[in-house]
């Protein structure tokens, strides 16, 4: 019964976060614009050299997701801090993991929506030929996003009470994301090149393992970082 109550709370938080975001639109516009701008700047720097553009596509894409994601994570707690709603949220009975799960799912949907735009722009700008293994590529992207969002949501909660949260979040997040970014970028690059050496599987396994570790660790630790 308590578990079902917590699931209901999680759903409520997802609905609330997505509804407030849909209405204000400020967050999504800023995040998607940043992602696209990074891709455009990368494309302009590399010039009209198609092989170079294709070789850099995976790195540029994940860099765009990373930077835009940090903006999204900071914003997801800013909404709570603006009207003192974080306190109200913490005063509701129920498990703390329900709050984290709600924030995590809302951020996942938010970052995935941004990823769709970034990928579409990236395919055009970097002249990417969509490979035959595109479902595997989609899987890699989702695994990468899950890893980034799990850690991003967690560290955003941790830094949310700090006055320097905009500076603190990247400082905490970037070093921890190195394995996820390494695996995501390499697997994406390998799949875009057709995965001739069948390397992608190993990177996907590594990515999945890190996702599981990060998800379990962040769910367990959230209660302690959100308390004062």
């Amino acid at each position, binding site marked *: 019964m308590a578990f079902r*109550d917590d699931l*209901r*709370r999680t*759903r*409520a938080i997802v*609905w*609330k976060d997505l*509804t*407030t975001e849909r*209405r*204000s639109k400020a967050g999504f516009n800023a995040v998607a614009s940043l992602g696209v701008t990074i891709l455009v700047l990368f494309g302009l720097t590399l010039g009209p050299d198609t092989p170079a553009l294709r070789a850099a596509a995976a790195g540029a894409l994940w860099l765009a997701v990373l930077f835009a994601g940090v903006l999204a994570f900071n914003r997801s707690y800013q*909404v709570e801090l*603006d*009207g*003192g*709603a974080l*306190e*109200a*949220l*913490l*005063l*509701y*009975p*129920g*498990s703390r993991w329900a709050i984290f799960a709600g924030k995590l799912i809302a951020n996942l949907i938010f970052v995935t929506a941004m990823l769709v735009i970034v990928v579409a722009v990236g395919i055009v700008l970097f002249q990417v030929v969509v490979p035959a293994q595109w479902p595997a590529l989609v899987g890699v992207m989702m695994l990468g996003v899950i890893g980034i969002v799990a850690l991003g949501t967690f560290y955003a909660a941790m830094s949310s009470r700090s006055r320097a949260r905009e500076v603190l979040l990247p400082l905490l997040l970037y070093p921890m994301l190195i394995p996820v970014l390494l695996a995501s970028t390499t697997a994406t690059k390998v799949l875009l090149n057709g995965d001739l050496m069948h390397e992608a599987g190993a990177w996907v396994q590594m990515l999945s393992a890190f996702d599981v570790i990060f998800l379990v660790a962040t769910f367990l630790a959230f209660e302690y970082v959100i*308390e*004062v």
Partner: protein
Amino acid sequence: MPNPLITAVQNSAPLLAPELALDARGVARRFGARWVLRGVNLQVRAGEMVGLLGHNGCGKSTFMRIVATLLKASAGDCFVYGANVKTEGDDVRHHVGFFSHIPGLYDDLSARENLAFAATMLGFPSADIDAALERVGLTHVMHEHVRGFSAGMQRRLSLARLILQRPRLLLLDEPYNNLDVAGISLMNGFIRELNAAGGAAVVVLHDLVPAQGVLDRTVTIRDGRVHTPSTADLRHDGVSPEAITAPAGAAGIS
């Protein structure tokens, strides 16, 4: 051979004792090197309404936040209906309703959506939402976004959230701020209603006048500890003693 009647009475004694809604024992809290609370002892019985006074920065809000599980005490223990705020936070949150000077609402949701969200989080039926909105006089703006609400309207909406919750221990931190006369009357009506149902309340106040007739006693926090205020204490804290000697508010104040 022990008298069975006496034994029965002795065994039933704890059941006859008034239930403690709040039992704070030596609660202390420091921020850095500064001790704001140095050992607060405060017992509030179920059905009792207590006013908490003290000058700015004396630790009233800090104490309330500790009881509400929003802040951890550096030392001491605090129980809400027997549940330890440190170790049984979830149980405590089932009993406590906290009304602070921060509304804790979402600007981009309507008044009704804010209450629907609260009802879901609290696990209460959303059928009561319209009644709560009507009671605080916000039915006509229930579909408008909170962003356009005045401070007083936001306070009324926060009160509607409390009405939905109907907590057993009400923690009110300066509840009359930004409320007009009708709003004050609403707030007092809710406190009395809760009182009649056996609930307790701790009310942080700077001015006792709006709370006349709803408090059973007042205490003050000074030097990080709880005292029963004398007239001189009240004057020191900027509270007019005449306000609590008025007939409506005099009950139980020592």
